[in-house]
């Protein structure tokens, strides 16, 4: 049923630390690997040895942020499904393929029901859904639902593949509905934020803003030692000006 549950037992999701992400794309690769070999249709690639184009559930953008004062900052920005509480992708689905689980709030696609109309991808502000052109079904982050409850895996692997693989500890997984969970404490401590809050989707995943940069040596850069050219170069400068 493509109506949203009024509330979910837990709110499983990710917390992504924009301060520590180094932009290595390891989460992108591990996500593609796990989700190609496990639950649902594999994530296909087109023209892999030419101009490659394919389906990914997680992508890392890179931005430059220029504050009012001080140096610009580089921010690597991983982006996947935010498992919104008010997920527009679920309610627009005409076939009932798209749904949000009552037990943990994970937004999933039942691939057997998806007709590939693409309306859910249109309704998502975050570009979290990609239609797999080979399978003809909508693909999206499953929060590795086939890992997190999987008793066949060692306990330390029962977290999403992207979190397990992140070498810089920039990705955290947990219950954001529980104020005492580690992820909730982290969000509270670091001022975790929603993406595009103005669109009212109420994302479960939170992003931790980059920490303010050191200002120790700001504004004490060396003064320029020669503003005016002198000697031969000075003459050349004047001569060229006059031409």
């Amino acid at each position, binding site marked *: 049923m493509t109506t949203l549950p009024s509330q979910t037992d837990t709110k499983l999701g990710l917390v992504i630390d924009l301060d520590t992400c180094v932009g290595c794309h390891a989460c992108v690769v591990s996500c593609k690997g796990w989700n190609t070999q496990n639950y649902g249709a594999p994530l296909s690639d087109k023209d892999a040895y030419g101009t490659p184009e394919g389906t990914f559930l997680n992508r890392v953008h890179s931005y430059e942020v220029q504050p009012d004062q001080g140096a*610009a900052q580089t921010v690597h920005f991983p982006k996947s499904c935010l498992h919104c509480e008010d997920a*527009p992708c679920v309610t*627009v689905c005409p076939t009932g393929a798209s749904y949000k689980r009552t037990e943990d709030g994970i937004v999933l696609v039942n691939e057997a029901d*998806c007709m590939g109309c693409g309306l859910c991808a249109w*309704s998502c502000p975050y570009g979290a859904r990609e239609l797999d*052109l080979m399978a003809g079904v909508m693909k999206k982050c499953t929060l590795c639902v086939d890992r997190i409850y999987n008793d066949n895996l060692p306990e330390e692997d029962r977290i999403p593949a992207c979190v397990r693989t992140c070498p810089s500890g920039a990705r955290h997984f947990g219950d954001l509905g529980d104020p005492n969970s580690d992820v909730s404490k982290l969000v509270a401590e670091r001022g975790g934020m929603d993406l595009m809050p103005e669109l009212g989707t109420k994302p479960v995943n939170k992003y931790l803003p980059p920490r303010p940069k050191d200002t120790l040596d700001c504004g004490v850069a060396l003064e320029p030692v020669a503003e005016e050219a002198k000697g031969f170069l000075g003459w050349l400068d004047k001569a060229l000006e006059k031409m």
Partner: protein
Amino acid sequence: MHPAPSVIFFTVFSGLGFGLLGFLGLGMPGLNGWFAFTFYFIAYAFAVGGLLASVAHLASPMNAIKSFSQWRSSWLSREGVLAVVTLVVTAVYAVGRIFFDTAMPTLGAIGSILCVLTVFSTSMIYTQLKTVPRWNSPTTPFMFLSYSFAGGALLAGQVTLALYLLIVAAIAQLLNWRVGDQRMLTSETNLGTATGLGNVGVVRQYEPPHSGKNYLLNEMVYVVGRKHARKVRRISFVAAFLIPVLALLAFRDAPHIGGMLAIIFHILGVVGSRWLYFAEARHVVANFYGK
């Protein structure tokens, strides 16, 4: 947004087909037998042809039948259910007209109301999307409905009514462009809110997440349409409204010629305007790509 031919064909021709069916249900024109058959044939060819075109847009069309199930929450599902119900109800009315020389005015009127509801739900598929600020306004249903009424009246040969309805549709179209432009200017969403980094400073993309294209860029970051938007607006407006109105007025004594000219140019104009409706619409996900 990517202006897919199947979706343009679907919205234009199902709008025209249901518009014509609506007028036929009201007895405009009140014909029986073969004449009624001709009108119903055109109406069904347009409405059903449009719906079939929308199926061509699907990546897994074998699951299309399941799209009738979620009418409680999904406008696309509602549109599918309403379209089928409308086609069945108007078919019963049409059989009476064609084979039994009988008009069932109550049934006809119900069919006409259903036609309006179908076109309205088509428009709501686009209106509901907060992610496309240009579409997310009441001018979208107003425009879709007035186009359907004007085109339907033209196809039904209701010359005087068509003249008025064309003017209404022209106003709706201008309003849609104007409000759409305004929505783009006043949209709160930008790369700063999309990344949450707007609080830190001015955000600029310096490296995209992938070197090739992807589904998002192909489907939702279509930028070619924005370049020639003004010109396409002028051309489609002249074709959809100005020429049809002038043709209807100039050929008052030969309404068939005037009507034919008006219909051909109107349809061409609507196709142009609908192409632009998709092509110039900017999805908020384009922010992430700095486009």
